[in-house]
């Protein structure tokens, strides 16, 4: 199919991009990797009079550790994340996530910022970022602000970004001693959006008790889900089989899946439980807790 007509803008600076967004309120869309936006326009599920391509703006693609944070430029590509040495060494959960997104061709173009900004509960990064307690940096006309990830996803395809705001950076707390994370996804075939997926992050204290837990769930409700009850349950527990299983059970209760081609509600909920159990187990292993 062919999208309805639009004007294409390729601003050279962030300020210019923000100004353009302000100039066409309601009718402009940021274009990043285009891997969600273009299919949407082509299938005419969406429409935009102006596309503001942020690909010509220098300085939006980077991955670096700074100030106790991993900083990922808003326009960093999935393929860069997957290949990054720091990420491979210190944030295996991000590699888990990136490598199950679509296929290599899509990942060469799709960006981490776009993956979050799209607000699609089927995208994989939101759950991971929820588990990790990330922050998102947004730049708008009135300057920069930092949005905690658990305040970011408001509804189906709705985020806390204002129409004139651009997501410029994602910040993830650097791993501490005893921390580990993992992302586990069930897909109908390689490259598919998740039938269900779960991200888990744990920090295990020196005494062997869980000090911090993060659990995020993909495609199991109208928004990416942070399984807070399950997280709370784990705090202060030894990360042993029974406790992890119980946390997984609680997490599955937090899901609100809908029945579709990927399966029935009960099936998806059950898969959420199995996957969360696995993600937690792997996270604990990576945290060094056997």
């Amino acid at each position, binding site marked *: *199919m*062919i999208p309805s007509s639009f004007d294409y803008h390729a601003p050279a600076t962030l300020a210019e991009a923000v100004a353009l967004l302000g100039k066409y309120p309601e009718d402009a869309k940021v274009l990043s990797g285009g891997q969600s936006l273009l299919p949407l326009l082509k299938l005419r599920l969406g429409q935009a009079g102006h596309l503001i391509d942020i690909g010509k703006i220098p300085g939006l693609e980077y991955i670096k550790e700074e100030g106790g944070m991993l900083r990922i430029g808003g326009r960093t590509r999935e393929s860069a994340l997957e290949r990054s040495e720091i990420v491979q060494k210190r944030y295996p959960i991000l590699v888990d996530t990136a490598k199950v997104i679509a*296929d290599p061709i899509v990942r060469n173009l799709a960006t981490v910022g776009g993956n979050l900004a799209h607000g699609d509960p089927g995208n994989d990064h939101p759950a991971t970022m929820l588990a990790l307690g990330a922050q998102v940096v947004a730049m708008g006309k009135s300057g920069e602000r930092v949005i905690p990830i658990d305040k970011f996803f408001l509804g189906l395809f709705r985020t806390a970004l204002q129409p004139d705001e651009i997501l410029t950076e994602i910040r993830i707390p650097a791993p501490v001693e005893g921390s580990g994370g993992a992302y586990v996804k*069930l897909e*109908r*075939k*390689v*490259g*598919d959006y998740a*039938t269900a997926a779960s991200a888990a992050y744990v920090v295990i204290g020196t005494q062997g008790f869980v000090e911090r837990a993060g659990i995020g769930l993909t495609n199991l409700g109208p928004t990416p889900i942070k399984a807070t009850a399950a997280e709370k349950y784990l705090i202060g527990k030894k990360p042993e089989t029974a406790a992890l299983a119980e946390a997984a059970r609680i997490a599955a209760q937090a899901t609100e899946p809908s029945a579709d*081609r990927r*399966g*029935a509600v009960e*099936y998806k909920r*059950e*898969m959420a439980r*199995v*996957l969360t159990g*696995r993600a937690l187990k792997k996270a604990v292993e990576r945290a060094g807790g056997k």
Partner: protein
Amino acid sequence: MTTRNVGQPFVRRDGRAKVTGEARYSYEVAVPDAVYGVLVTSGIAKGRIVEIDTSAAEREAGVLAVISHKNALRLPGEPHLEGPDRVVQALQDDRIRYSNQPIAVAVADTFERAVHAAMLVRVNAEVAAHTVRVEDELHNAFPHKIMAGGKLQEPDESHGDVAAGLVAGAARVEEAYETPFETHNPLEPHATVASWSGDRLTVYDASQWVFAVKKKLAKGFGIPPENVRVVTKFVGGAFGCKGSAWSHVVIAALAAKQVARPVKLALSRHQMFGPVGGRPRTRQKVAVAAQRDGKLTAIRHETVSPTSRFDVFVEASALQARHLYASPNIESRHRIVRLDIGTPTFMRAPGESSGSFALESAMDELAHRLEMDPLALRLASYAEKDPADGKPFSSKSLRACYQEGARRFGWEKRPRTPRSQTRSGQFVGMGMATAMYPANFAPAQALARMLPDGSAQVESGTIDLGTGAYTVFAQIAADELGLPFEKVRFDLGDSDMPEAPIAAGSMTAASVGSAVLVASRALRDRLIRTAIVDSASPLHGLAPIEIRAEDGRLVATSGKSDSYVELIRRAGGKPIEERGKTAPGDEREKFSMHGFGAHFAEVLVDPDLGTVHVSRMVGVFATGRILNARTARSQFLGGMVWGIGMALHEHSVFDEKLGRIMTRDLSDYHVAVNADVGSIEPLFLEEEDAHVDPAGVKGAGELGLCGAAAAIANAVFNATGKRIRELPITPDKLL
């Protein structure tokens, strides 16, 4: 014949052109002044168009016409042929017979404008109640002759006393199996470019058979066949769906006539689901019984598949039960029902792939019941002659395929009982199945021409579906003419060339290959005769039998020789050509002819998620002479990968209320991609078969898929203890 070239793994001649984009597929052929047609298709499955409002579309800039039944020219003839042809809907009436049926075509000066215009067409239809569920029509099921292997076959066949045989066995399996609707989905969609010049029509079509397209259009438009030329130089996959000219082909020609401009028309991916065929769903029942020693006492295979209201296609799933295993009692039955769907059609190994899933699953179940190795069960009922009529096989190396496959695969490591072996938390399972596909052969013609520069040009109007026709036929001609491979050009895909059969049924290599062989041989003999009578030739006066062709020369046993270049120069410098023609003879009456093979599959099944990964497959096939080791391997590889898709993914899911396929793109219609596929090892055992056809070829295109899905399903049972009798094997079925 010397085989310096035949069998060699030459790379495909069209390969480079395809990967560089140099190859022009039908839609891409540059035709001056061409305009673009985009189809409007029906949203309902049955009814009548009450009103079709094209005014908004017609007002748009660049729109030349919007053609529907209201203003389409009436075709003087019926665009329908005998044989494997499909009834089309070419905007001739107001009836809607299935969802996604073409009901109008928007023609504009650019593709984009045509798409836009098509979107603006408003249709008001009177909706009639439809049925797309096989279950709802079972009471109206009826038998119909089956068009398969180039001939009509009986829907039912029976010998012996199957009821008694089933009771006589020490163990018996009687189960129902199902395969879903599947859609071909070649990468290249259907596309047609039609261009008129007076009452002469030239068509570039994504087709498996230019001659049928030609005859069909000539008939529909009431013009002599010689006025129609159909060209297909490259095809981006077909698998059967391009075997007949569907509605859009006639519509493209009709639109071109009406707007008096060449029209290019391609289907969108969405439009591939319904109006251009697909494998019909099958509901099958298999009953098999055997003695303790594994000797089969009875086989019964019954199947029901749907066709459309207006045409007949029978998915011949039970045919192979007639020929595969020795048993004194065999019965097979085919029934069809009519539904409000587009006509299904041949899809890679039509009948054999769906049928082998049922039959080979049942054999596995029987082996399990007998506590026998599934391979041993098959060997116990190995058919030394065709059980259907007692004819000998022209060649059959199935036993060797079983042995070699079992050895390469490590069949002896198969877990004895389900859930007994795990690898990194996953159940390991192994399964096997037999592959069988008829060695088809149809009349074909070819032309071979020696050029003054000593190179040869060979042609036949066949199609290269991506299978290697451009390459392998040059290999055959090169050997016959004693030329290096590089000195032979093979051209195809044009109805002005010598007539070739449909590129389907795995018979192109056999049929066209034989014609090329015969034509090249005739040319060589003619050149030899020319030399002998030429007093200036060093070979003057020799007997033909003393002369052979080698390295671009005719060489006598004495060592004297004459080159093609010299020979032609002396003969007047004009190219010299000969035609060759082959057709099946009475060997077909004397022998049963099939390719055979054995599949072995290993799967890993996640116990909690139910996901299946095919970690390993070994397939060993014996199918006559292998013309090119590389292209043959690719065919088997493709067949086996398709088997993975068929076993685990492929499913055209109907929305029964709306009567249409919901999975109408490749993000919902799943096929296996590289990352889904583990290690696949296709091997072939060469056979000498003097009876099957002059080229000694039995065909490789479909055999690799036959039995592949069953081997995987059997491996899944071996891994989990769960017998899935309904494809595809999705994770939910294993929980």
